[in-house]
């Protein structure tokens, strides 16, 4: 029963950590708009956490610039299990227009397993909500698999 309760909790209260790895801020703004009154992701329990230690879902935006690579890897390591990595926008998926640049070391899946990707440049808030919902499902299966 205890396990079921915890699963319920995990389903209902995923906390996000947003890492910007050199994004143009388009995706960041869309992500923030998800918690505005219009979309209000808090009604599904989403909350932006301030530190990786509190997070369940890591949302990465931006191509991984060489400056941010090290920080990204370290921060990702600091998130407690179970965790899900969500890439938001085209940049972490493939570096988008920046690919091939001398200062970009993406894409993200070089450094960790990306569980869910949300495409769009930037994705619409609705798409982000869809992606996060999918991430929660994966989070649940990860918790069960443990």
């Amino acid at each position, binding site marked *: 029963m205890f396990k079921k309760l915890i699963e319920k909790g995990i389903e209902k209260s995923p906390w996000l950590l947003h890492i910007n790895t050199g994004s143009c801020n388009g995706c960041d703004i869309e992500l923030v708009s998800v918690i505005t*009154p*219009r*979309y*209000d992701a808090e*009604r599904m329990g989403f909350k932006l956490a301030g530190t990786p230690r509190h997070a369940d879902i890591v949302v990465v935006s931006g191509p991984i610039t060489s400056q941010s690579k090290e920080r990204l890897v370290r921060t990702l390591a600091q998130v407690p299990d179970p965790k899900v990595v969500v890439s938001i926008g*085209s940049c972490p*998926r*493939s*570096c*988008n*227009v920046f*690919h091939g640049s001398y200062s970009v070391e993406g894409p993200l899946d070089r450094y960790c397993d990306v*569980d*869910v*990707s*949300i*495409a*769009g*440049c930037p*994705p*619409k*808030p*609705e*798409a982000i*909500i*869809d*992606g996060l*919902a*999918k991430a929660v499902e*994966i989070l649940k299966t990860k918790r069960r698999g443990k």
Partner: protein
Amino acid sequence: MKFPFLKEAITSLTKKPSTELYPLVKKEAPEGYRGRIKFHADKCINCGMCIRVCAPDAITRTIEKTEEGDKITFQFYLGQCTFCQMCADFCAKKAIELTKDYSMVGTDEEDFMVRGTFIKKLPPKPPVPPAGAAPAAAKAPAAAPAATEKPAEKAEDKKEEK
């Protein structure tokens, strides 16, 4: 001390919230939204203009030689796309369309691929020229649409991911 939003906060308590219940109530994207790419392989003439204008190199083209002709596959990788609509704008045949479908969520690369395949028939071998060259030249344009008819049927099996 001023609390400029006190009144608004209290009055909002009794009003309906302005939140959209997105996952429950589906929502249409606004007119002109540039979402998931739809590729009409039947219209494509393999001019390659889209590839040339694509800034992030999201469009790849593979050409296989088959007996029937060149089997050409256009692949749009949504994970690399900026959704700038350049390709659609530059497409002379309007074979590329950016739909209003915004929900592009996937767990692996395949979820973000939009592909379209068509076979570009080799130009028919010039038959033994009949009496005059002029009628043959006049016939060829007429045959060309007929030649593209066939691959269009084959293009039905192009992958159209949701």
